[in-house]
């Protein structure tokens, strides 16, 4: 079984209408089963450096690691995906932090991150900041990440209702980012995956400009053509003002991708 046979991925990034630079970075590789999206911030081109580093470092490390996982996995360790994701994100954080420390013009740079790793009929999602992960399953469109933002904290603490939050200005002050501290608090969840699922990773340039309902309708209407759906979402964000860089990755799950079991697991399965 090859992952590239059961996963279809499309990535888009667009500067939007107001920004002169694109500080987002995306990486998607169906054969690896990895999709990465980062939204950088900082002066000069430091935002681009931070998001670019996050994408490249994580992509390179997964390129080494992921193929080994598909050869053989260890059933005895259910937390294996989460643990691996955490260690990769920690490494990337340290590298960006060190670059920021060592180079005055990168001081204070940081980036959000949302990373999806498809493995063994599951998807492990790591996120930091306000980049998001959505899932469309049949008619259910669900946000599976929770923003690490001041606004979300205000909603959680009851200071703002979600309705008020919609109209709040400067809504996305992030409370966590990659590269700003030697340690990062990364949130990780592992979700089951079903054939037919359509998954979306996006930067706030999309989720701030297009309401969830608009995204859902677009995915439902154009889900048969991921390229077109991705393009339409970028258009929608730009039609609504395009105030920030817009990035997204769409992933469609076409079938089952259980990892091959080693001899010990096969034996155990036979004995059951």
């Amino acid at each position: 079984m090859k992952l590239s046979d059961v996963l279809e991925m499309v990535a888009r990034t667009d500067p939007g209408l107001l920004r002169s630079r694109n500080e987002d970075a995306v990486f998607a590789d169906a054969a690896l089963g990895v999709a990465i999206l980062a939204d950088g911030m900082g002066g000069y081109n430091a935002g681009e450096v931070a998001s670019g580093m996050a994408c490249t470092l994580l992509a390179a490390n997964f390129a080494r690691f992921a193929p080994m996982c598909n050869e053989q996995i260890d059933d005895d360790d259910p937390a294996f995906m989460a643990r691996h994701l955490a260690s990769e994100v920690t490494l990337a954080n340290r590298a960006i932090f060190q670059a920021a420390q060592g180079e005055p013009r990168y001081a204070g740079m940081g980036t959000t991150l949302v990373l999806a790793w498809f493995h063994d009929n599951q998807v492990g999602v790591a996120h930091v900041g306000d980049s998001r992960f959505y899932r469309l399953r049949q008619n259910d469109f669900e946000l599976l990440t929770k923003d690490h933002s001041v606004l979300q904290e205000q909603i959680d603490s009851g200071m703002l209702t979600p309705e008020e939050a919609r109209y709040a200005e400067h809504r996305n002050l992030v409370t966590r980012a990659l590269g700003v501290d030697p340690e990062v608090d990364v949130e990780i969840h592992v979700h089951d995956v079903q054939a037919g699922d359509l998954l979306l990773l996006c930067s706030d340039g999309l989720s701030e400009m297009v309401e969830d309902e608009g995204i859902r309708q677009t995915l439902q209407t154009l889900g048969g053509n991921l390229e077109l759906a991705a393009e339409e979402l970028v258009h929608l964000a730009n039609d609504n003002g395009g105030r920030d860089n817009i990035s997204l990755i769409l992933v469609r799950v076409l079938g089952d991708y259980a990892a091959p079991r080693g001899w010990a697991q096969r034996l155990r399965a036979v004995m059951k």
Partner: protein
Amino acid sequence: MAKLILSMDGLVLKEIPLGKKRLSIGRKPQNDIQIDNLAISGEHAAIVTVLDDAFLEDLNSTNGTLVNGQPVKKHILRHNDIIELGKYRLKFMIDEAEPRSGADQPLTIATKASEMELVPRGGSTTRSQSGVTSEPQGTGVAAAVVQLVSGPLAGKELPLTKTLTTLGKPGQQVAVIARRPNGYFITHVEGNAFPLLNGQTLDAQAHVLGDHDLIEIAGIRMEFLLKP
């Protein structure tokens, strides 16, 4: 374009482009930059951009506005000025026209870029390169319908009220009409055959629709009509 980097305690919170002529800063929600902190006055300061110059003005705030450590009432902002309001810092920066090459790239990353499918930044859609539009136009586009010309339901009108309206037979041939601020666009979605527009086969790109255009999808002919 110039921009501001908002930070607190060394943590970058937000990057704000100076896109507007007058940018207000304060605690009240109607400000362009709202800082919800009691040390910030309701209407604390404003930045007015005139041609290439940006002027910072303190709006008689309770706790004052500092630039590079000095209290100011009015100040012409220069590159790398640090504006302080309470515990918040805004760094004023003028974007360089050209991204610097070579030395500016992080050299510490040891990766084989050629092996990666990094999507080129920008450039993926032609539309984004067509320049900056001043204001979003909202729903300023005229109403339109698609009227069936052939088939058992000939004469029936399908109003194009949604952002996306799909036409055709799923599994066979589907096209979509997108309603945008600048008009209606038809695009092929799925199926081996592509829709016909005024007798011409469409390619994979979006095509703008004009009044009385004839569309044929999955053997059904229809007419696009604007309703002024």
